[in-house]
């Protein structure tokens, strides 16, 4: 026993070091941006970087409650509008994807033949096609049919992100469910829709929740669709960051604070639902 621990110690130390290095690699940008968001302009541009400074919440105040001019005129600050837009777009996209994706995933999971394999691959291919490939044609189409800068248009284009995620994660989840339960329901007289709504969905609720969570985070983090297809009405929170680049200056502190705010929901979800998210990601093997 003692022998084993003494032999394992260097290995354990090495592993711990790797963890620390990885955590540093992942967390450093986050910490850096956070520090930036609570510095005033002078501290931000100081060189060498200052680690001791008087923290300020003025950047957060500006984005959350508006600049002095905005406050005076009673305007809603832009970032709040963008946050609402993101909630509507990502929330709407995830709900739509659930409505389409749950039946689709169920069909893919239970119909094992070459057609369904091809369909599965097609769905998967949406995930590896870079968004840049479709964005310009989509811009033209959206402008022509009037989807440009509309919630409907944004929710539709976000299906490219959320739908494949939902389908792939849920198809794996459904496939792991014992089929006898559904067969028992068939013998009990249930049709395919009753089986789906009364048996499969209730049983798969944890899987559906984690798939929706993951899809929501991926959709929330998207910027390119907002950049090209959203205008003043529907700009998502990821675009809010760019608002700090004004004509005459770049407000680094405001930008950092915006980045923190826009990343916040994802971070909270990741911490709260760590287990479900990991399970969902490994199930769908989307990473």
């Amino acid at each position, binding site marked *: 026993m003692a022998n084993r621990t003494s032999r394992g110690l260097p290995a354990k130390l090495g592993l711990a070091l790797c963890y620390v290095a990885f955590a540093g690699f992942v967390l450093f940008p986050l910490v850096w941006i956070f520090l930036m968001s609570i510095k005033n302009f002078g501290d931000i541009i100081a060189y060498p970087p200052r680690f001791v400074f008087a923290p300020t919440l003025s950047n957060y105040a500006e984005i959350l409650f508006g600049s002095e001019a905005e406050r005076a005129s009673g305007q809603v600050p832009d970032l709040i509008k963008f946050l609402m837009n993101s909630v509507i777009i990502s929330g709407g996209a995830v709900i739509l994807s659930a409505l389409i994706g749950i039946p689709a995933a169920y069909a893919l999971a239970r119909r094992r033949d070459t057609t369904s394999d091809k369909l599965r691959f097609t769905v998967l291919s949406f995930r590896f096609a870079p968004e840049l490939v479709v964005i310009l044609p989509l811009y033209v189409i959206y402008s022509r049919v009037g989807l440009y800068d509309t919630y409907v248009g944004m929710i539709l284009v976000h299906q490219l992100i959320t739908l494949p995620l939902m389908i792939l994660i849920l198809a794996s989840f459904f496939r792991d469910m014992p089929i006898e*339960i559904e067969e*028992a*329901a*068939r*013998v*009990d007289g249930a*049709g395919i829709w009753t089986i789906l709504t*009364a048996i499969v969905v*209730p*049983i798969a609720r944890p899987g559906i929740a984690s798939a929706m969570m993951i899809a929501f985070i991926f959709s929330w983090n998207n910027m390119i669709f907002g950049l090209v297809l959203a205008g003043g009405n529907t700009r998502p929170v990821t675009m809010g960051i760019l608002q700090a680049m004004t004509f005459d200056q770049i407000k680094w502190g405001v930008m950092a604070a915006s980045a923190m705010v826009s990343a916040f929901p994802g971070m909270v979800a990741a911490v709260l639902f760590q287990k479900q998210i990991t399970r969902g990601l490994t199930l769908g093997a989307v990473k």
Partner: protein
Amino acid sequence: MASIQLRGVEKSFGAANIIKGIDLAIADGEFVALVGPSGCGKSTLLRIISGLESATRGEILLDGRIVNDDSPRDRNVAMVFQSYALYPHMTVAQNMAFNLKLSRKDKQEISRRVEEAARMLDLVDLLERRPGQLSGGQRQRVAMGRAIVRNPSVFLFDEPLSNLDAKLRVQMRGEIKLLHHRVKTTAVYVTHDQIEAMTLADRIVVLNRGVIEQVGTPLELYNKPANLFVAGFIGSPSMNFIDARLKDSASGQKAELADGTQILLPARPFASKSGKITLGMRPENIVVERESGNMAGTVKVSEPTGPQTHLVVEAAGTDMLAIVRADFAARAGDGLRLSFSPNTLHVFDAESGRVL
């Protein structure tokens, strides 16, 4: 309630022929057991009757009506699965009520029937629990309850007791039999356990590699097995087999074993083209004595079971199992003599395996 008829039923999965032409008629109210080794197609045949699987060829009739194209719902059959397949998110009561709800029975009737079934199966105190909070035996009861509450025309059981421990299995076996006496619904019961089949069924269908080897009452199969497969499958411990040759003599036909031992056969003319036969004797029919008897043997193993003792005896170059009284003291190495009453002998053609 309904009769079941299968006419030339075949089933292939891709290139694999699993069910190879089954003809079977099950009378209304009959309890039929489907036995056979694992993988022989029992579940597949049951699923074809239920409508979960379609037949590749042949016809399935329920109450004289061809139901090949009917969904499970339209066939009104109830099935009890080996894994129970309860709905994990529903309470026991909801599990049992699911079919009734789907067929739009009114609330009062549903609760009346669920309560009735719960009383019958001793589930009254568990109605609000979920399957996850039940023991294996209780889940099994719920699965049964889900089936009987519907008042189906046919019960289908797929090894419903194989996940229970031995004691519970015997108890549930008794309850299933009682239940059938009470409701008299046609039942097809799949099992690989021949004792379960013997004790429960009115008739047993022995299935092997997708074909029926024999159909008969439990005692018919035990007393008159049609071939070596059935002879070896029915009865526990299973029948002893010895290769022999047919020999005529003044006192009647005899079987001559490899070592020259001669055993008198029943007084029936046997004929085998090659003259080669396989002799079958059940362990419980072998007479074991110390001095007299027509075949010498040596005890290899003695296994007391309590009421009786099983002896593995080496004789005529093979091992034979014989059952003796518990007070018959025998130890490994003891010399014994075995004899066989002609009427307990089973004689099979060695080549075709069929009974002669």
